[in-house]
């Protein structure tokens, strides 16, 4: 494959169970879960009262009082994760031309928490349709247009190249990174700070998933409520968090002797054009995305060493996805570990795709496949090797991560060990 290659040279994460990449990786390789009863607000009136929340102190991440006041929680996550990625990359930002640095931020529901909090005030608890302008806070416009998430991130990393928010529902996290890699490959940027963020744990979000019975109602056993691929799975667990990467053109990274986690070798997406929330059982469009991503990466189905699944834990998704994986990988699907980290950190909607890419990058780095937690009873319709409950050591050359989202979005991304210039690859941290 000719053209410019794109490498991941820095990773930053804000995830349930531990802030920072080290804590994140420790959690998801341990098989422990971070799904608990909702603590961010009183959820006792809702059908599902469980979430995977981040124990996040913005001041501890260098955010000042004015930043904390004006920034929605999702923006705070993004800036914290982006800053960690930048530090991790070792890239001298002060010495890098800002016009060659761009940003993409994925998010499905934007500044939902701030919008709801402010709505309750201006409407006086929903009593007024003609809400009170006198109670509108100064940064309300930043919340209504979630492009502010990219603004804050760009300010934090001083980027002046192409900057955007990509909002494709639950595939935002994959699509943001795929788009950023595309921008580097076509020469629009040398460095992209790319990732996704979501802080949706708010009454309106919990209510909307209650209304379609998409989330698990196992409120008396929150640690085990997220059970992707298990026979008794009964919905997903809402999560929050962020993951950001420093993506760098290969020669740019090589010149400075950067340490590289993985190469972004291929990306593709499709739409199912079927239903805003429903999925057909045969998974054909997700399979088409997988096929196209593998082809783009110049690898075959048999090269795939690990599939990081969407694995949300709903009855329909896990069945749909299993069918898609089998359709694309054929017999090789039965030889390939497939796991869902949503079993441990919940489903953070637009952010999860990026958090899952982080898991893939770390998996390649360490040769460890994270498990699917809470998987005890196999479902005959989901009969692949989902790495139940315990992480597994396995050298990984080629990793596939997939996602599906409301609106019909189906995306797939392929990460590989860097395939050129292995001799300059730095030490494992």
């Amino acid at each position: 494959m000719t053209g410019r290659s794109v490498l991941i040279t820095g990773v930053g994460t804000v995830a349930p169970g531990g802030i920072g990449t080290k804590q994140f990786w420790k959690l998801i390789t341990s098989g422990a879960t971070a799904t608990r009863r909702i603590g961010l607000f009183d959820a006792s009136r809702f059908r599902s009262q469980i979430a995977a929340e981040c124990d996040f102190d913005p001041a501890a991440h260098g955010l000042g009082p004015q930043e904390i006041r004006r920034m929605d929680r999702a923006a705070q996550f993004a800036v914290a994760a982006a800053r960690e990625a930048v530090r991790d990359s070792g890239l001298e930002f002060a010495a890098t031309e800002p016009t060659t640095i761009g940003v993409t931020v994925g998010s499905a529901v934007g500044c939902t928490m701030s919008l709801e909090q402010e709505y309750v005030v201006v409407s006086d608890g929903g009593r007024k349709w003609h809400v009170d302008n006198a109670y509108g806070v100064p940064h309300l416009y930043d919340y209504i247009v979630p492009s502010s998430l990219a603004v804050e991130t760009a300010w934090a990393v001083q980027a002046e190249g192409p900057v955007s928010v990509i909002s494709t529902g639950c595939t935002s996290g994959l699509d943001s990174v795929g788009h950023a890699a595309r921008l580097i490959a076509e020469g629009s940027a040398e460095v992209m700070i790319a990732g996704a963020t979501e802080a949706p744990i708010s009454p309106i979000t919990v209510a909307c998933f209650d209304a379609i019975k998409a989330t698990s109602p196992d409120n008396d056993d929150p640690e085990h409520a997220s059970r992707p691929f298990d026979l008794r799975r009964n919905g997903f667990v809402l999560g929050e968090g962020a993951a950001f990467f420093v993506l760098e053109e290969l020669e740019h990274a090589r010149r400075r002797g950067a340490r590289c986690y993985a190469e972004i070798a291929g990306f593709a997406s499709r739409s199912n054009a079927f239903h805003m929330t429903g999925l057909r059982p045969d998974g054909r469009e997700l399979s088409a995305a997988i096929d196209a991503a593998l082809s783009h990466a110049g690898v075959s189905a048999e090269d795939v060493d690990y599939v990081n699944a969407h694995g949300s834990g709903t009855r329909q998704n896990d069945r749909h996805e299993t069918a898609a994986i089998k359709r694309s990988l054929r017999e090789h699907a039965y030889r390939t570990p497939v796991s869902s980290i949503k079993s441990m950190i919940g489903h953070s909607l637009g952010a999860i795709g990026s958090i899952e890419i982080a898991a893939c990058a770390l998996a390649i780095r360490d040769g460890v496949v994270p498990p699917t937690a809470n998987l005890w009873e196999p479902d005959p319709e989901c009969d692949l090797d989902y790495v139940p409950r315990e992480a597994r050591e396995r050298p990984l050359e080629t990793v596939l991560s997939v996602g599906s989202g409301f609106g019909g979005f189906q995306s797939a991304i392929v990460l590989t060990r860097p395939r050129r210039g292995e001799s300059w690859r730095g030490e494992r941290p």
Partner: protein
Amino acid sequence: MARRAAVTGIGVVAPNGLGTAAYWSATVSGHSGIGRVTRFDPASYPVRLAGEVPDFVDGQHIPGRLLAQTDRMTRLALAASDWAVADAGADGSTWPDYLVSVVTAGGFGGFEFGQRELESLWREDGGQVSAYQSFAWFYAVNTGQISIRHGTRGPGSVFVTEQAGGLDGLAQARRLIEAGGEAVFAGGFDSALCPWGWVAQIASGRLSTCEDPDRAFLPFDEEARGYIPGEGGAMLVLEDAEAAAARGARSYGEIAGYGATFDPRPGSDRPPGLARAIRLALADAGLAPEQIGVVFADASGLPDQDRREAAAINEVFGAATVPVCTPKTMTGRLCAGGAALDVATALLSLRDGVLPPSANAVRPAPDYRLDLVGPRPRRVDVDNALILARGYGGFNAALVVRKPTETGTRTKEEQWTR
């Protein structure tokens, strides 16, 4: 021969015209759609004017089953997508599978739908939301609903960069065509004309409080005092220029160049990025500044923003050399719908050799040194138009459209295929 993205269909829903023909006719004649808000009672708010789309009877344009699950802005977008594909004369049943996509720009999401749902949830104990809340308001909804309506299974996308989104989305649509896509629906729509959306927009501090529709939104004028928000936008259908010609389709023009930059953060002494975005777009189009026949300005209506835009235009083109149009003076600023509508307007200008007037801007501030078109349209045959869009927070985007070409090659390395 490299593929070129041609626009073969346009669908418009705007405050001064429902449908492309009505919009264009109103725009050329300087007829504005800005007036007092009727969607809710604006009396208790400091801003009382908006560009509202009149006479859109939802049931006439939207299937009955979709009414309960769509916000207004989705209904406008769905109607426009129908009109765009009809305008293109394209037969969707002949489209190869996986090769047709939808790319939309969003800004506010389905905000009115959201306000109703928030009210249902909070007003009473035990309040609930509808089964549609999980998707009717989020930013991706238009791409999803349009893709379902037209059966498009290619890669869909959604860009949120406030006013700049329409151009970012069209650039992505061009990539998809260049990579072998058959067709792309691309555009943007926004509508947040409900009290909760109103208060959120007022909070930007950028809206004009003037109550005279003829004087409220005056970009580049000595009395510029903010902008008036509106609802609406445009959907375009893009196809490969050769393929379109082969099936006898009419092309409005081609997406020739694009550039996007982001301003330095506040407090920096580095220069703003609009001029650089313009230069990137020109270089991408392979054009020199003197080959641009008209600039459709971002036109924020805020004095300091107007000054910066005028400076950027003059830096690249020289003072008062290129005509500048601001048709959004007749619609208001439409957030994600604005840039898409400006591109549609630019293409119609190319087609008809007419530059639309800027309504009401009768006293362009002389020190901006801009050749502002208005108060009457100007008959000029133009080959290439430049459209500018700036998104709140620092986004800059520039797009060049050119008249349909019969010949001409563009080579472009494209590693990233669909």
